């Protein structure tokens, strides 16, 4: 007897042959047929694919009596995320439990994002989106900008991963919301705050180079207050061994002596903490959110020169303290009928100290720099009806004051203002929408800029989205670029102009809940073209003096591909690929620091909540390390492996059962590759970490 029945474990459906053929065609065409016919578009997640009439019973008379049974794959539509226009990814840090992932690890494995690391654990790491510089990408923490006003970038090593709940990455856009700096895109770190039930999270691990880290976080309610308080700490000796560069040029090879060295003066401790307290106030929620970090340790500097120390600084030391606090009210809009109003007052403070009493010519160096940004940020969404269409208008206003105090230069300050308005116009409700937005942004003494953002988003079905977007962006020079004190060998340039840029991008997203034996299939392809002019680059204006200048136009083209799929609940495969090709118009040469291809492949085996084995391969093309590109770091393929078991999910565990108790082992850089993102900063070879991760 032929049947049309579901096989839940295998994720298969058995269909009538004619229906099966339709479904198979749709699947092989990755939904293209469905897009045209609109049949699958109406399928709901978990639905039957239309093969059975409502109320039809398997026990009813079988009309296919005698017909041969055929097994075929079927498609169950998924739901593309509600993010529109931009190319956006949201990563949950809980997906990486038991894998010893840092924030830099997670970001570097994402399509369109690369991380430039200057060493190992707790060493500086900078973010690059689509090949843009760190200062051309805005990083926010709970919506508040965290980039340094001194350098424009952000050191990712200063933020503990256990205190972060999720990471929202927006590629190619974000300038309307964030203003200056969002040329490559934006990253928003959402710290852990609040929980449905009293929760305690903790982690403790130890590993190579005497690296120990731990964290403890508690979220609960107390007398009408929601609170979350967390701490994380890391201590490392950082004394990894590394291979010195071997230079092959025109058939001649030169080497440093000795050919390997040990990173010295690289010990560091990091302490981080977050606190979030919230309570109901009026028609909304009032919250105080604070994220603080402190780090102290040696600064070995460059790997250069001969000898055992490889030219590293033996006595340089730095201490950094930063704190970002915001008081925020979210609730019903006082101007509209939505629930999307927010008003935040915030302050970001940073103090950086650098001391070295062994600088060859300068003698003792003792730099003490304090930075502060104080501001207000408000957002609202107004909903209204026009011509029987439901429209939404986004409004935003930002006011900030930046302040710099340092013992090596005159104090500086500047006021920044930004206001934006955006409109969502449903051309075909639920299917085609036009988004238009513009921001008026004014940074310090620079002329105000208008930043446009226009997007057309087609959602022919719930599981597929097509989008195209144009975004204008700019970046005002940082305090260092403008006012770095003239030390002879380095100086700022007060006559710099802001960088100007625009990006046009398009993409396709597909989200299928089920495809034959596969499930949770997600595919995303985005392409972009970015033009930038007046790009700010530090160059040697004389053999002895480094200074920033505005350079000519450059363009970057590229695409990102993201794919992930489950096969049963035991196997999950994902692949992220980024292609970037850039060109400086004057010379036709590529911009430095960008690999052309960056591919990350990850395979997870095991029921995720009980145990998992994770294997990863990360391949990165050659990285040009000089303007003009004649010097290149080698391509590399780095393999990582981790194994983790959740004892709480094992029946034999004879202890009080937590919600989760993971024991894990993580082995990075299995084949012990020589890894560098920049010429003079080595990264560790093979290293192992073990620890536990728990949740009560």
């Amino acid at each position, binding site marked *: 007897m032929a049947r049309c029945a579901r096989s839940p474990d295998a994720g298969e459906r058995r269909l009538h042959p004619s229906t099966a053929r339709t479904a198979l065609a749709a699947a092989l065409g990755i939904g293209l047929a469905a897009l045209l016919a609109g049949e699958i578009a109406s399928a709901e997640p978990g639905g039957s694919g239309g093969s059975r009439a409502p109320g039809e019973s398997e026990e009813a008379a079988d009309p296919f009596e005698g017909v041969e049974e055929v097994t075929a794959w079927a498609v169950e539509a998924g739901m593309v995320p509600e993010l529109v226009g931009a190319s956006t990814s949201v990563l949950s840090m809980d997906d990486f439990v038991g894998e010893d992932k840092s924030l830099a690890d997670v970001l570097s494995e994402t399509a369109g994002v690369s991380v430039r690391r200057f060493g190992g654990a707790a060493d500086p790491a900078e973010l690059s989106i689509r090949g843009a510089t760190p200062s051309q990408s805005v990083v926010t923490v709970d919506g508040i900008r965290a980039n340094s006003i001194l350098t424009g970038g952000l050191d990712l090593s200063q933020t503990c991963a256990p205190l972060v709940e999720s990471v929202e990455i927006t590629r190619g856009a974000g300038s309307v919301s964030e203003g200056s700096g969002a040329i490559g895109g934006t990253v928003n770190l959402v710290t852990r705050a609040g929980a449905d039930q009293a929760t305690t999270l903790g982690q*403790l691990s130890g590993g190579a180079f005497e690296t120990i880290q731990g964290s403890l976080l508690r979220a609960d309610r107390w007398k009408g207050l929601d609170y979350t308080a967390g701490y994380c700490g890391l201590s490392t000796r950082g004394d990894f061994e590394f291979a010195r560069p071997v230079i092959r040029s025109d058939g001649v090879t030169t080497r440093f002596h000795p050919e390997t060295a040990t990173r010295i003066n690289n010990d560091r401790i990091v302490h981080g903490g977050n606190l979030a307290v919230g309570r109901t106030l009026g028609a909304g929620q009032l919250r105080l959110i604070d994220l603080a970090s402190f780090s102290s340790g040696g600064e070995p500097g460059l790997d250069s020169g*001969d000898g055992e120390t490889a030219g590293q600084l033996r006595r340089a030391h730095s201490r950094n303290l930063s704190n970002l606090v915001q008081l925020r009210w979210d609730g019903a809009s006082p101007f509209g009928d939505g629930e999307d109003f927010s008003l935040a007052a915030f302050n970001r403070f940073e103090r950086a100290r650098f001391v070295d009493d062994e600088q060859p*010519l300068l003698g003792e160096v003792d730099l003490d720099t304090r930075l502060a940004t104080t501001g207000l940020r408000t957002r609202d969404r107004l909903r209204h009806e026009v011509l029987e269409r439901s429209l939404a208008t986004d409004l935003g206003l930002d006011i900030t004051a930046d302040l710099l105090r340092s013992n090596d230069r005159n104090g500086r300050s500047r006021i920044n203002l930004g206001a934006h308005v955006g409109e969502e116009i449903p051309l075909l409700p639920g299917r085609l929408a036009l988004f238009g937005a513009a921001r008026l942004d004014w940074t310090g003494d620079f002329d105000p800029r208008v930043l446009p953002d226009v997007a057309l988003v087609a959602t022919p079905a719930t599981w597929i989205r097509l989008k195209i977007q144009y975004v204008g962006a700019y970046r005002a020079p940082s305090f260092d670029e403008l006012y770095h004190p003239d030390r002879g060998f380095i100086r700022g340039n007060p006559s710099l102009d802001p960088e100007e840029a625009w990006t046009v991008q398009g993409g396709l997203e597909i989200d299928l809940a089920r495809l034959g034996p596969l499930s949770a299939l997600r595919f995303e392809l985005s392409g972009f073209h970015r033009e930038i002019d007046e790009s700010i680059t530090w160059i040697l204006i004389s053999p002895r*003096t480094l200074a920033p200048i505005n*350079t000519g136009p450059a363009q970057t083209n590229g695409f990102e591909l993201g794919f992930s799929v489950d096969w049963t609940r035991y196997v999950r495969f994902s692949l992220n690929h980024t292609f970037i090709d850039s060109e400086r118009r004057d010379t036709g040469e590529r*911009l430095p620091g960008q690999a052309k291809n960056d591919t990350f492949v990850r395979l997870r085996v095991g029921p995720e909540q009980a145990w998992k084995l994770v294997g990863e391969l990360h391949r990165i093309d050659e990285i040009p390390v000089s303007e*003009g590109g004649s*010097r290149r770091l080698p391509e590399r393929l780095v393999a990582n492996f981790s194994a983790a078991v959740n004892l709480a999910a094992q029946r034999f565990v004879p202890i009080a059962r937590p919600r989760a108790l993971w024991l894990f082992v993580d082995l990075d850089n299995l084949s012990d590759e020589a890894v560098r993102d920049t010429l003079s900063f080595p990264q560790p070879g093979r290293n192992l970490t073990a620890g536990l991760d728990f949740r009560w």
Partner: protein
Amino acid sequence: MVAAGALAFAFALAGCEGKGGSEGLVVRTEILVANCAPTPSLSAFPAGLAVPPQASDVALLTQTDPNAVAIYDLRGDRPRARFAGTLGVDSDADGSDDADTIRSVLGFAVYPVMGEIQIVEAGLALASTSNYEQVLAYDAATGAPIPLTLEQPDALPGLALPLFPPPGTSAQRTGVSTLACVYPEGAVDSNGQAIAPDARCDAARPSFLTNLTAGKAIAGGRLFVATSNLGRSNRFLPGTVLVFDWAQTPSGITVRPSATTPVLFTSGFNATGLAAFQTVGGRELVLVTVTGAIGTGTGPGNVLSEAFVDVVDPAVPRIVATIPLGFAGPSFDAPAIDPSGRVAWLGASSTRSLYAIDLRPLDDPRLYEGDPAPIRLDGQSIGGLDARIFTGDAPFALPPRSDGRASTGCEGLTDVTINASGTEVFASDFCDGTVTRVGLELGGDPPFPYPAARFPVLGQESAFAPNDVVGALRSPLMLVARPGIPGIDFTSPDVLALVGQPDGQLCGIRIESP
């Protein structure tokens, strides 16, 4: 934490800390410009360049990161690297790690940083290193180190060489240590502060250790080595020229500090380039570029004190004359001297200028009589001798780049070389990337000094991009004209340029070549 620490220890024991690449980290360079070759170095700026005085198909290049001497084959349009010998950690072949050797003197460890190279005699190249101050000897054809026998007299007046073999002994090495304690009397630094005693030399009298070993010259059986002597906080200590007796025999070369005059103090700060030459009258002399105190920036404001060209009579040895250049801030290289010995040219460190001196007054015998202080050849000394052609007050200004492009924030850094026939000066500018040709009309016997009209601009080539064209080949640092007649002695490019950005490159340029 204890448990985690124990885990960390256990894993370390288990060998889970890798070495970060057993095959090394191979940094590859790529040929991007047809007439240029990247240097096998991580550093942008090569340290020095020299070609043998006879027509030859090789050039020697010095570099840092790693320290090396590289030999280039000049037979094609593009120089090709043939060999590169790195210094290693025992650069002078004394059997000890350099860091260990110098720690006993400085109190901390440093390794050499390769500096300029000069071919001082047929087949002999000398390269300077700083930090570990010395002059290394190389075979100019192969780049192989040449062993030297170092000796130290029982006593030296006004000088101590702590890394030389002990007094009365000798040792074989490949480098001549130029780390010296000198004892200037009544001297001040470039900030006007009196020189204080240096306990590493003598805690009881003004003294300092020489540093930044620069130019070299061999003349009159002596080796002269300039040391720039930069103090902390960018202040200059008195410039010095160390004097060694240089005895070359078929069995080898023996070097010993001059027993009578082991050190000369220059007329100003920052003694850098040295060049030996013969005057028209056949007198062997050494010219010393004394730049004066210079900042680390660019532009006229970068020049902090007066510059000179000192003239050393190697036979005595002493500084017999000095030619004041005013606030010129010449570049650090040795003066470029025309083959007939009539004029010498210098580049500028901070402006788009050239400077020149007339060498003919140096044949005046009155300069060499007695043992007076150096005579200033500025028209106000004996017989009104004036050797100044172009100075800080009246420089030779290079014409602007023909396409009108200049470089933001870069006000000039020039270098000069003179062609083998002595008819033209070629001058490069780091900032705008040009190479300018200047005629040398040295005929007849005009009065001292030569009038400026004798040096017309003949043309200019935009050989490289202006310094602010990021990504383009630019920033020429040093020009060297090849010996020989272009088209006859060689058919490849006749001028070599060391280029600093975007990478260190050695380029061949055709100026007179067909």
